[in-house]
């Protein structure tokens, strides 16, 4: 069993290192094209992987999650504000769970 405080400490130290090392030590842009490209793609990949299919299991009914996903993609595609999207998805899941 792992200790929660130690896990939080590791999470913090790694996050901090990532954020402060380049800005404090390295003052030149990254030249390596592979590394630049890799770092460019990582946020999209990691967020997409974490979103699907996990969003289907937010409730016992996968259809609620699927509807929220579709609505969220459409709203985000159309450029809706992040917090409006978050609220709308919350409403969709709530309404579906109350209806069924």
């Amino acid at each position, binding site marked *: 069993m792992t200790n929660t405080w130690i896990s939080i400490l590791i999470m913090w130290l790694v996050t901090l290192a990532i954020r402060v090392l*380049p800005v*404090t030590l390295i003052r030149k842009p990254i030249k390596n094209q592979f590394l630049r490209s890799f770092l460019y793609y990582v946020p999209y990949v990691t967020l997409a992987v974490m979103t699907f299919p996990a969003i289907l299991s937010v409730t016992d009914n996968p259809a609620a999650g699927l509807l929220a996903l579709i609505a969220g993609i459409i709203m985000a595609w159309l450029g809706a504000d992040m917090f409006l999207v978050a609220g709308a998805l919350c409403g969709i899941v709530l309404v579906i769970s109350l209806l069924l």
Partner: protein
Amino acid sequence: MIKKKTQAYQFRPSVFLAGMRDGVPIGLGYLAVAFALGIAAKKAGLTAGQGFIASVLCSASAGEFAGFTLIREGAPYIIMALTTLVINARYLLMSFSLSQRFSPDTPLIHRFFVGSYITDEIFGITIAQKGYVNPWYSYGAILVAVPLWGIGTAAGIVAGSLLPASVVAALGVMLYGMFLCIFIPPARKDRSILLLIVICFGASFAASVLPYIRKLSSGNRTLVLTVLISAAAALIAPRKEEEAHD
């Protein structure tokens, strides 16, 4: 000789207050999303105090979400370190970019403190300043937004046990709404990102049903898929210099 030169990093009340003002809408949004994050933290067994401290220290939505999932799964510390490294890798890119925006004479301490609170939103408003970055503007925004992120997380942990399960599940979906808003708009502008996301959805779904692979914890699957898909994308479709700047 006589006139003292104004430094780009000098404290000016108007700059600090402007930062605080711009931190308000960011902080209110954080409050709502952190609430959903708190629900994930609650599932991992964190107390409200632990959630508040984790959020105020880390202030990273996807990173904390993945971290809490790992705590829930009892993942080893090395996996926690690697996952945090990969999931927060975008901050590395932002930190490089930020390093170019301080005046050369800015003391290291300011670079450290502004750097330590790079989030998508705070980075965004910090580099939107004209000319050199004044750290006091960022401090103003951080001072408003980050405590709200922590309070939201703690509130999610507390309320997560008071509210009915259906409401908790509905609130939990907000975090995915925030994720969608980060990766869908760029997919609209750039076909290669759209294709990448479709591949990610497919691969992530496959990994959740395929024998052996599905036995991996979701945290480990995220880590492996992120490294493999991002590396493949970087090899197949390398970014040109000017594209990789945002």
